[in-house]
């Protein structure tokens, strides 16, 4: 850091700002249709419900396309298509042959990655650099990874003979639409199940583009069916004749799904909310930690179930870290998600924006101190300034509830034991972050975190080989890695 930067950081005035020339990603590569049907039995079909809804670009509020809304009858047809594909084709296909289809999808996703990335950003509001560098490469890698498992399943479960469950109903969120589709579909298909996938209401477009890829891959019709709609469509899918439900989304909806499946013998995996602690010790490499804290909460506008939304700072470095964080916040570029320089894009929907605003207002009301950088937000679209809260008590709503936005609640601690106590003081248990130079402390902390993923000196890192999923009310079951196979298998003795 130069003297000028240090002075700027400590006085909290904005650093000398550079003007970035606009670097917009072209949208020419995306060919949108005016309207989309449901993808059932290998074809796009008109919804029996006769209903449609409009999907928009949250950065401009411009409509992008008309989307079919699947009613109970449409859901039943999709499940039927998946059932007959399972019983007549997919179940009896050898693992090696199933794998080849998945490899085809993986390759085709790599081939058309830019198109998917641009569409993902248009429909969801996330910065193009994230959809381009994170979502799409990981989605393709996930298909690639599970393709390799399809003909090796018997090696994963000693003493057991693995077989498919049947038809999986999969409900995914709007924060990582394409990546979540990959997380759901790849292991389900590799293990011999067929699927009915319901993308989120606000972000259906990449899943519908995936349907094209599925057609190009000549996957047996009905192996993957994609039905669009909102919560009611999801509820109908849960209550349909599927054998398994896999859900990623809010803890509240997860609990409703648990109740709806009670006594049905449907298998269930839930990947729910989080309120992760990102813990910075006084020996941490602070500049690296600042980047990790920023990435932990502002990656994808904080629309991340495993976001590091509670920052726990050891007292000796609190002042210094705050200065660095505030200075770094000033340099975040908030705005057009299609601009390649953008760090923080659009909030996914007006509804989500209201929820964030409501929780931030509660933080102010309850006496926490708010800090937001100066930045010019676009006039149209849904936006929220990157926000820090200090003076946060553990009882504040902003310390307890998942905000799912670019809002960081900062809490201090003195001893490692106190950090453990505070980090685990939540009904959630999805992820945690630890920043320290001491390897033994990383492992000591990791052992004590009641969370499914612990990142040390990094955050929000994902890999298809790395199991992901929650403790406690963050859900059950794992996605990714060998552990991601079991939720889609029946293991007979």
């Amino acid at each position, binding site marked *: 850091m130069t003297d000028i930067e240090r002075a700027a950081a400590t006085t909290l005035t904005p650093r000398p700002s550079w003007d970035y020339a606009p670097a917009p990603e072209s949208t020419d590569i995306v060919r949108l249709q005016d309207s989309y049907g449901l993808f059932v039995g290998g074809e796009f079909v008109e919804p029996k419900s006769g209903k449609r809804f409009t999907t928009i670009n949250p950065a401009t509020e411009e409509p992008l396309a008309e989307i079919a809304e699947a009613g109970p009858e449409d859901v039943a047809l999709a499940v039927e298509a998946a059932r007959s594909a399972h019983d007549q084709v997919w179940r009896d296909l050898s693992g090696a042959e199933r794998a080849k289809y998945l490899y085809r999808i993986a390759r085709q996703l790599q081939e058309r990655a830019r198109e998917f990335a641009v569409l993902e950003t248009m429909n969801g509001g996330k910065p193009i650099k994230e959809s381009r560098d994170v979502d799409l490469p990981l989605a393709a890698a996930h298909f690639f990874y599970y393709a390799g498992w399809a003909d090796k399943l018997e090696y994963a479960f000693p003493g057991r003979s693995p077989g498919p469950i049947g038809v999986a109903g999969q409900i995914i969120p709007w924060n990582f639409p394409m990546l979540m589709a990959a997380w759901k579909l790849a292991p389900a298909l590799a293990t011999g199940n067929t699927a009915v996938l319901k993308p989120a209401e606000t972000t259906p477009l990449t899943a519908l583009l995936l349907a094209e890829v599925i057609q190009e891959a000549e996957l047996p019709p009905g192996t993957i069916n994609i039905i669009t709609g909102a919560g009611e469509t999801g509820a109908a899918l849960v209550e349909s004749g599927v054998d398994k439900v896999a859900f990623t989304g809010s803890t509240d909806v997860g609990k409703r799904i648990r109740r709806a*499946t*009670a*006594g049905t013998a449907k298998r269930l995996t*839930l990947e729910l909310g989080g309120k992760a602690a990102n813990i910075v010790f006084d020996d941490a490499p602070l500049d690296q930690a600042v980047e990790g804290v920023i990435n932990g909460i502002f990656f994808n506008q904080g629309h991340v179930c495993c976001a590091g939304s509670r920052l726990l700072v050891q007292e000796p470095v609190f002042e210094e870290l705050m200065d660095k964080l505030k200075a770094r916040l000033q340099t975040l570029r908030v705005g057009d998600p299609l601009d390649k320089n953008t760090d923080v894009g659009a909030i996914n929907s007006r509804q989500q924006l209201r929820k964030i605003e409501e929780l931030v207002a509660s933080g102010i009301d309850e006496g926490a101190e708010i800090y937001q950088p100066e930045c010019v937000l676009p006039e149209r679209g849904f936006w929220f300034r990157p926000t820090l809260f200090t003076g946060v008590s553990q009882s504040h709503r902003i310390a307890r509830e998942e905000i799912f936005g670019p809002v960081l609640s900062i809490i201090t601690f003195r001893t490692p034991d106190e950090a453990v106590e505070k980090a685990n003081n939540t009904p959630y248990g999805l992820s945690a972050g630890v920043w320290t130079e001491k390897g033994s402390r990383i492992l000591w902390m*990791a052992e004590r975190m009641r969370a499914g*993923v612990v990142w040390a000196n*990094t955050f929000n890192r994902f*890999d298809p080989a*790395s199991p992901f999923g929650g403790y406690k009310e963050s859900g059950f079951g794992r996605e990714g890695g060998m552990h991601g196979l079991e939720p889609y298998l029946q293991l007979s003795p």
Partner: protein
Amino acid sequence: MTTEARIPVRRTAKLFIGGAFPRSESGRAYEVFAKDDRSLGWAARASRKDLRDAVKAARAASVAWAGKTAYNRGQILYRVAELMEGRRAQFEAELADAGAADPRRGVSAAIDRWVWYAGWADKLAQILGGANAVAGPYFNFTVPEPTGVVGILAPLDQALLGIVSRTAPALVSGNTVVVVASEPHPLPAVSLGEVLATSDVPGGVVNILTGQVAELAPWLAGHMDVNAIDVTGAPDDLIPELETLSAENVKRVHRAPDVDPFDDAAQSPYEIAAFLEYKTVWHPMGA
């Protein structure tokens, strides 16, 4: 010379909570009968308060039990088998009263099951966890950890082998448990509690309640500080209610496969896995 017939000292069958043997705080008890309708005396009929006390004791014991080395946990559970062998006659008599076809075989299988599960303590991580080859400079590994406090509804029949088959796999990974004993045949479970109390299993790691399953099970399934519930011993018609209640804190619900409890298939590392969480750690690498 006078021949004096000695009056035997009878046992009061109590609850086992936090290493102690309280009566039900409710003052309730129920009469237990042998297969031939002989009265075997009374057992405590646990109340909701007893159940909550048991959960509290299990939670309090959780960190220390999970924090023991796997080797140590394995040894402690092995010792349970040692002590049961010494009280074999008592268990056999109780199983005979409960109408077991072959009490001797029942006790032998229960003891052997402890030994089998005890041996898994320090092997689980190698079978169920591992290193993950991620595309980056991280040592990424996944380890199995105990889910926390597990509620167990023990099977109604096989009054000893049943409770051991459900309890041992939950304990070996470091969970603490609250077990509801077989309602018609609670006495072998009460005796098991007495064995555990004199073994090296710390107080609160295993808590055993006797009473009415239909009354206790929903309280267990709805308790916010119970992380998982084993409903193997629950009647079918209770399952929907228990699963509904379990949603409140996203409990893990498990029902063991319906196999002959004497069969080798009745013991499995996958029964241990039912009450595990998988933690994945990204440890940085660099010079």
